[in-house]
């Protein structure tokens, strides 16, 4: 603790304990506890308490209050817990009898204040913090604390209830790990006392007739097996396994969803996944007996495991695939293609009845699709999925949803009636469709897939969110199309592309900005993925899409303008920059596009389009295309002059990124070593090359922008500028000469960091720049700039800018000052919104 904080703390404690003062802001108390937590990690807590007697005084005086405010009492409980986390400090507080009065039976536990959830929460958190040594454990066990915590598991406040459950898990694990000397066996009665107490209560609850107590204990076990993987957990399990197993069939308890969680956590634990027999048999039985909705999360969790018996995995896969299989079978009787599951292993009655009910059909399918998406997104999937059949099933769902398929089978027609127009399912199915593109097989029914996607893209009933997902799925599959061309002729590809561009043209004119925006994003995605494909380029350029994109640069909605800028920027890769550009006429004039984008950068009233322009320019520059346009130097210079005065910080930041790319490229072009940021190794001489790059930077007016950005009111801008200047300096000054230079130069004479900060703060760098003879600094003078680079202590500035902008305000000292300052002020300000 700093000396200043040590001086402030007694007054803060006194203020907190003073009931006449208005209660402190809850965030202040919370942050104060954060600080005490940090302090207790950093230095011995006993010393902290002894050096600052005000802390124990605070606890004493809060305890002495006839009616402390709940928030202060809660704070005190948590503070005491943090302090008592170290054993000797715990003893110290015990001697003062403070802990008993706080956490014992005579404390808030039995007072009216216990009614307040924040007091109960403070109590639990306090106990949790101190539970790091055996004396604390014994203190609680002997004082009846365990009963309190067990009761709190059923607290009306979910926050308190779940904290209590976690606390019990921690105490049990801690007791066993700290107090056991030899490995345990089932029959052993010499488990630590505290652990015995907890386990006894768990067993009692499981055998009780109270549904809520059973559920609490199941939750506790779930938490336990999820967080603790010690061998004794198995011993514990053997004691309760029978009872837990019985809940699988017990309708009245309705603990099935919790059982699924419990079993999943156990399956993930190395203690259980290696066992043979009984545990996995229970999992299999759960997968069989739970309803598909309850078993789903367990099944997907099992399938993610890398260590799991094959038959369990197959059972889990059956649970997940059953609804998809039913869909396929309902759509075509007899099955036209292979189903997802072997008929002999499946018993589809339950799933069929769920699918034919209006209330469960969509939710079962949505859940299943969610799980499939989760599985398919894994890079290493420990199980083979029948991707082609899955794709057919997905396509069937999508057809059901838009009414394209009304099968003759009773189940099929029922499902199609239920699902028609179901947006929820459409969204889920399209998501899975998109991830499935990465696992395409050879027999992929590409043509019908695109037919279905096209109907979605075309239909006026498609909602904007569904449309966006349709675009995403389409672009993913389109990008894969060339890879699949062995099965697919160029002609067919072209046909698909043509159809898609016709739809895109329509969608770009949609009255809904969300649709226009998604369409433009789709276009950009396509260009990124397919710009090297001839068919794609030809089809795109022969469509109306490029012209419409240009029109959208003037869209009333700024998000759309920004997306149009990005799309138009990418279009130039095909229209202007492609080496064998298929453009014949002068339809796509490079200069026009550049001029248009520059105009947007300087005149658009909103930030998003301007940000998009600067990022496109940077992209061009990075890919080396600006040279094809005009003189890069002039281009950069012009752009940064516009960006410099932009009110949007991200445009300025984008401008700096452009400058950075330009610098790297210029230095490379002029023969610098591979890494332009590597410091000079040769002696510090003003070689021709060096001068040349310096002169280029000066001519392009980079330095004015960079130095002004150093004192930008938005910190990320200053930071970036500083990074670039540091890199430039290392290019122009070999590291050793810089040191000499700074030592011998006049920089120390009043031009150190303090000077710079003052200058920067005043925002008048130009008026007091060290190199200038007059009032104005010539940012285009190479010599002055070289001198400036060497003079300013950029490292220190860099360190300063790297700090958070509120590092002063969020320091402990500032926090203590704030708490003190609110003492005595009127409360009125608090009851307000932002």
């Amino acid at each position, binding site marked *: 603790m700093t000396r200043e904080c040590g001086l402030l703390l007694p007054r803060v404690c006194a203020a907190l304990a003073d009931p006449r003062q208005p209660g402190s802001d809850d*965030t202040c108390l919370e942050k104060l506890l954060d600080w005490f937590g940090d302090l207790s990690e950093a230095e011995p807590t006993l010393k902290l308490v002894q050096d600052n007697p005000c802390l124990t005084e605070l606890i004493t005086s809060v305890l002495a209050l006839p009616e402390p405010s709940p928030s202060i009492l809660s704070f005190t409980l948590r503070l005491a817990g943090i302090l008592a986390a170290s054993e000797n400090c715990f003893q110290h507080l015990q001697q003062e009898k403070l802990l008993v009065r706080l956490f014992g039976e005579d404390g808030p536990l039995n007072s009216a204040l216990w009614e307040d959830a924040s007091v109960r929460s403070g109590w639990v958190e306090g106990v949790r913090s101190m539970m790091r040594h055996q004396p604390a454990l014994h203190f609680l066990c002997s004082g009846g604390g365990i009963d309190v915590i067990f009761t709190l598991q059923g607290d009306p406040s*979910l926050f308190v209830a779940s904290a209590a459950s976690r606390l019990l898990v921690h105490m049990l694990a801690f007791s066993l790990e700290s107090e056991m000397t030899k490995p345990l066996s089932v029959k052993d009665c010499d488990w630590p006392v505290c652990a015995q107490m907890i386990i006894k209560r768990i067993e009692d609850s499981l055998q009780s007739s109270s549904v809520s107590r059973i559920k609490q204990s199941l939750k506790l076990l779930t938490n336990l097996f999820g967080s603790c993987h010690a061998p004794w957990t198995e011993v514990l399990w053997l004691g309760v396994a029978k009872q837990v197993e019985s809940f699988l069939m017990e309708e009245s308890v309705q603990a099935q969803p919790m059982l699924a969680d419990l079993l999943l956590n156990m399956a993930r634990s190395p203690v259980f996944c290696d066992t043979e027999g009984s545990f996995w048999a229970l999992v299999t039985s759960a997968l069989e007996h739970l309803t598909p909705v309850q078993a789903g999360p367990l099944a997907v969790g099992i399938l993610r495991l890398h260590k799991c018996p094959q038959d369990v995995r197959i059972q889990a896969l059956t649970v997940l695939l059953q609804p998809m299989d039913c869909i396929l079978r309902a759509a075509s009787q007899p099955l036209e293609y292979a189903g997802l599951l072997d008929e002999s292993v499946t018993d589809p009655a339950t799933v069929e009845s769920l699918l034919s*009910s209006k209330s469960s059909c969509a939710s079962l399918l949505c859940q299943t699709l969610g799980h499939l998406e989760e599985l398919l997104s894994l890079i290493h999937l420990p199980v083979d999925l029948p991707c082609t059949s899955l794709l057919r099933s997905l396509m069937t769902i999508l057809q059901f949803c838009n009414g394209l398929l009304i099968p003759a089978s009773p189940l099929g027609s029922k499902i199609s009636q239920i699902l028609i127009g179901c947006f929820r399912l459409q969204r889920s199915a399209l998501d899975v469709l998109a991830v499935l593109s990465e696992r395409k097989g050879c027999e992929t029914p590409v043509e019908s897939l695109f037919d279905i996607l096209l109907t979605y893209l075309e239909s006026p009933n498609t909602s904007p*969110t569904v449309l966006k997902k349709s675009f995403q799925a389409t672009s993913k599959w389109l990008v894969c199309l060339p890879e699949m061309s062995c099965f697919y002729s160029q002609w067919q590809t072209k046909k698909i592309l043509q159809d898609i561009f016709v739809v895109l043209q329509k969608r770009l004119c949609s009255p809904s900005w969300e649709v226009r925006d998604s369409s433009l994003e789709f276009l950009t995605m396509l260009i990124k993925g397919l710009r090297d494909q001839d068919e794609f380029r030809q089809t795109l350029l022969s469509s109306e899409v490029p012209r419409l994109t240009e029109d959208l640069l003037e869209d009333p909605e700024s998000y759309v303008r920004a997306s149009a800028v990005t799309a138009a920027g990418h279009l130039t890769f095909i229209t202007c920059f492609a080496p064998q550009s298929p453009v014949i006429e002068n339809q796509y004039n490079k200069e026009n596009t550049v001029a248009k984008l520059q105009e947007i950068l300087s005149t658009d009233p909103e930030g998003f389009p301007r940000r998009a322009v600067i990022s496109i320019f940077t992209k061009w520059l990075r890919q080396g295309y600006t040279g094809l346009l005009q003189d890069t130097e002039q281009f950069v210079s012009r752009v940064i002059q516009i960006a410099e005065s932009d*009110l949007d910080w991200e445009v300025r930041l984008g401008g700096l990124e452009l400058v950075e790319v330009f610098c790297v490229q210029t230095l490379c072009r002029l023969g610098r070593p591979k890494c332009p940021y590597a410091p000079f190794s040769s002696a510090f001489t003003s070689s021709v090359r060096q001068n040349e790059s310096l002169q280029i930077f000066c001519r392009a007016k980079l330095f004015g922008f960079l130095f002004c950005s150093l004192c930008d009111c938005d910190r990320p801008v200053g930071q970036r500028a500083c990074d670039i200047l540091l890199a430039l300096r290392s290019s122009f000054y070999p590291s050793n000469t810089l040191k000499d230079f700074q030592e011998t130069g006049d920089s120390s004479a009043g031009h150190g960091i303090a000077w710079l900060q003052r200058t920067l703060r005043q925002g008048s760098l130009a008026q007091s720049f060290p190199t200038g003879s007059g009032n104005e600094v010539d940012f285009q003078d190479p010599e002055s700039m070289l001198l400036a680079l060497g003079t300013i202590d950029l490292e220190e500035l860099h360190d300063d800018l790297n700090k958070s902008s509120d590092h002063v305000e969020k320091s402990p000292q500032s926090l203590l000052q704030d708490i003190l300052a609110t003492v005595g002020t009127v409360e009125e300000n608090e009851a307000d*919104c932002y």
Partner: protein
Amino acid sequence: LVFFSLGPGAGQDVGRSCILVSIAGKNVMLDCGMHMGYNDDRRFPDFSYITQNGRLTDFLDCVIISHFHLDHCGALPYFSEMVGYDGPIYMTHPTKAICPILLEDYRKITVDKKGETNFFTSQMIKDCMKKVVAVHLHQTVQVDEELEIKAYYAGHVLGAAMFQIKVGCESVVYTGDYNMTPDRHLGAAWIDKCRPDLLISESTYATTIRDSKRCRERDFLKKVHETVERGGKVLIPVFALGRAQELCILLETFWERMNLKAPIYFSTGLTEKANHYYKLFITWTNQKIRKTFVQRNMFEFKHIKAFDRAFADNPGPMVVFATPGMLHAGQSLQIFRKWAGNEKNMVIMPGYCVQGTVGHKILSGQRKLEMEGRQILEVKMQVEYMSFSAHADAKGIMQLIRQAEPQNVLLVHGEAKKMEFLKQKIEQEFHVNCYMPANGETTTIFTNPSIPVDISLGLLKRETAIGLLPDVKKPKLMHGTLIMKDNSFRLVSPEQALKELGLAEHQLRFTCRVHIQDPRKEHETVLRVYNHLKAVLRDYSVQHLPDGSITVESILIQATAHSEDQGTKVLLVSWTYQDEELGSYLTSLLKKGLPQSTS
């Protein structure tokens, strides 16, 4: 009906709104706010409390955002783009338009504060907004077949709405923040007499009866005017949209009236955008603004110009609106540093500031501020706090309850002590239950739903044939078979039910033994019973059958002697369920014994 709030901490603290309501099996999240007092995970609600197992998208039916303030919508992009909620989100049109501006504003502060880890990006804000379905006032939006929502005008800020959520005959109204008195640019909140099962009301100003806003406005203008007159500069830190526009109108009109010349600047280049939105959503403003709109648009400012960074150093008086609102960082803080040292200048804080900001420090009276590099900034300029926030006060809350006539009231977003007082008042005056749960606490409210049931035509015809015509005032009992299928209820005749469900009919007979003290022979006892019943049940056909049994409609009575005690006769009574009433009556009659006179 279940209510659960995910506010910060376990108390009733104000800070952010995020409420979960379960109504008739549908789960709706109301608001998705952020706590601006924290830079870490505590700023967002812990969504893992919503559902332990299963995905949020599957669990929640929709999310509703009441207005654009960050403590009501700030966590939305996090929720939809990072936590992974992918279902529908509803808000009004103005909220949808303005939300992203405030979110961008705050994202910038976060980046500045190095709190950007686990924070959303610009792209995420846009993607989130694209998922939003905008609703009109009083438009009934069908979320799915059962769940519908409807927005009502809430005042407070442009686009703020109260929402009615309805499933079948159960409904909840969530007020968000609202204001029952019109202000300079907005009208007062209004709602139908919709008699919801539950009204969830904010209670920020639960016990305060606020002084008139006019006074505060006059005070504000006076202070600005005085400062400008003595050549000082006025800094007003604001968030990009919202209160800023209200203050702009105030100053603009005042400048016009007083013919003042000192320049007024708005720093972020957002004036045009603000104008744009207020023009676009003119129907959401109050009557006065709408009426005068044709002659003069209140949001087209003559005196307020865009600010350039260099202007801060200009000599002479000026008024500058600069973002962000709590002097967190950025432009407002930079200008503050420049002007703080001059006692002629003034800073007016028009809103609440969280701890950890320079705004909070100066409002709590600190005048020597530590700046970067251990420098001390001495604040000599005047510091004023003026609350212009528009919440309903105690009177307003009571007024809304009177308008909506809810069955239950639940208070959120207020301090426990103040809420307790209001709770008592509400319970006394309206005789309804009033709840004020702490954050994290679940409140369950039982409703008495009246469930609509379709009645088959056949059954109805049969009932009317008996001569009982339906009458609204006289509810009557109707017999039939209730079929519950696919969330619909139908009452049909038993025969039709059997036919529809393909079931065979089973006859059910109730039997009962009645002991009678009678030493006579069995057939004599039977005769006595027959005569007795014949006398009492004159309207029914009572028959004495040759086999010695008696029937009354479908009821059959047989008598046997008790095996052990010949003086006791056992009457075996049985009847079908259709004659349940008569059967029970008859047994109770027989239990009383036989009259002596009949012998």
